[in-house]
């Protein structure tokens, strides 16, 4: 576990975000900060991370938990280095999402919601990601992988394995 503390640079970004909102409305910054926390602290929001964010915003930790637990992008349990999020809604479902999910599940030996024992992969099913015209699709970090075939999925998994490409790739993007 990394130290639960933002760098000076990250804190500067956070202060900029807080300054967007009118006086006394700084709680509006909560979701953006939780995104930053999740990407900086190994892809999930631990109780310590949530308390730390609460401290920064001067609100109660339970207020942070209340919000973090509502939104599906926030992970409240540790996740693998590479989180594969497969859309399983309407158009992706029509175009073979089920086969994609079953294929990944078999290859990695896990079910949706689980993490491989080597801590490399987490498989998640998610709802429509607004990429229905290129179904079936999945997301790793901030990247969309579209018009999937089982071969494409295999290539992606191999690439993640060998390059160690991880969802914390999101970190660079999160902080601009």
């Amino acid at each position, binding site marked *: 576990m990394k130290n639960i503390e933002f760098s000076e640079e990250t804190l500067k970004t956070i202060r900029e975000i807080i300054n967007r909102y009118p006086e006394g409305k700084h709680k509006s910054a909560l*979701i953006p900060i939780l*995104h930053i926390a999740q990407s900086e602290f190994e892809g999930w929001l631990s109780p310590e991370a949530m308390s730390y964010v609460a401290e920064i915003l001067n609100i109660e930790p339970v207020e942070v938990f209340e919000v973090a637990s509502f939104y599906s992008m*926030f992970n409240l349990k540790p996740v693998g280095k590479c989180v594969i999020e497969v859309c399983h809604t309407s158009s992706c479902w029509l175009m073979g999402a089920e086969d994609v999910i079953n294929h990944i599940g078999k290859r990695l030996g896990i079910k949706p919601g689980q993490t491989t024992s080597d801590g490399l992969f987490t498989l998640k099913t998610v*709802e*429509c990601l607004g990429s229905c015209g290129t179904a079936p699709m999945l997301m790793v970090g901030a990247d969309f992988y579209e018009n999937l075939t089982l071969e494409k999925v295999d290539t992606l998994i191999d690439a993640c394995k060998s390059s160690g490409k991880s969802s914390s790739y999101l970190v660079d993007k999160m902080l601009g």
Partner: protein
Amino acid sequence: MGKKLLLQNIDVPGINTYEVYRKTGGYKSVEKVLEQKNPDAIVEEVKKSGLRGRGGAGFPTGMKWSFLAKPEGVARYLVCNADESEPGTFKDRYLMEKIPHLLIEGMITSSYALGANTSFIYIRGEYFYVLRILEKAIKEAYENGWLGKNIKGSGYNLDLYVQVGAGAYICGEETALLESLEGKRGNPRIKPPFPAVAGLYGCPTVVNNVETIAAVVPIVNDGGDAYAAVGVERSTGTKLISASGHINKPGVYEIEMGVPVEEFIYSDEYCGGIKNGKKLKAVVAGGSSVPILPADLILKTAAGNPRLMTYESLADGGFATGTMLGSGGFIVMDETTSIVKNLWNFSRFYHHESCGQCSPCREGTGWMEKILHKILHGHGTIKDIDLLWDIQSKIEGKTICPLGDAAAWPVASAIRHFRKEFEEYVNNPESIQDVKHYFNVHNVAEA
């Protein structure tokens, strides 16, 4: 080729950059309104245009704007709804990704009309890469003097921010969106008060969809009458349609309102017909929430007239034989599609996305999912089909927000038009090859 009012320059190389966008006439609408200095005149033009909200409900935009309360000394906000999480809908992403300055220009012009000095674009968290595109475009707009203090010497100040969501369909509902923007759970608010009176931070607020805001640009440039001249009846202008499913050419199409559905599905200008030479079985025409229609009823109304891509024509026949334009998420299903299996998928979605505040929605969506799962796996009875009908009828109209209706309508319409197929699953499960256990019902962690 139909007339285009939003995407006419989408293929111009570099249109996502400020320079190219400006060269093709970008930001003219801002120059125009700052010169005329008459915000109310903009609202009048929008009224004249007949523009209706493109987020799904189709409420007249000009009227919505004129409801905005203007108490002295109180801030007003414009919030753009870029949550786009209605399954089958991806047009806002397309627009923001390809031509981000069009949305920003629309935000500035609309904010000026409403007298807002701070405006937000609320974008779903999963569109992270689009957020970066928007932020870059906003930076360019600031650098070129279209945002910030004293815009182009007019004395008008505007700050524009992008706010990111974190995965919740319900945050597309405007009051849930405002809650989320305030840093809370996305629980829809009880109305009234409406956002026009008490919205963001309790201040008067207008919430509009991305496409609605973008449409303000051609309306201001060419006038409301020119906009209203495109389209038919009370469906004026153009509409972005997200086409997906079993078609040859999925994608985003800007259509003139009034294109026949048959032409939209089969012509090469649009969807290019059904994939693999199969036959059309059914269409969900306006995003997952609207009633599903079988092939004969989507192509022609019950009275036998060609069905058109307009608010009125798609709704012709009410819920007995019609549907809705909704968000324009056009999902096409071929003859091999199992309606029962797809309905279960929709019901699973609504159960997952219910915020849980109202019991009919919270309990009803879960119950419907369970029954459909049972039927799908060959354990259903005829009584279950009737029970399903009964449950959906007890959700509709009895909840705080329309998600309850959105969960009920697909169930009602599927039973209404495809009851035989449900009965087949009940009476003859062995014949249905889909009867097997799906293991991806839910993420294990959430189960």
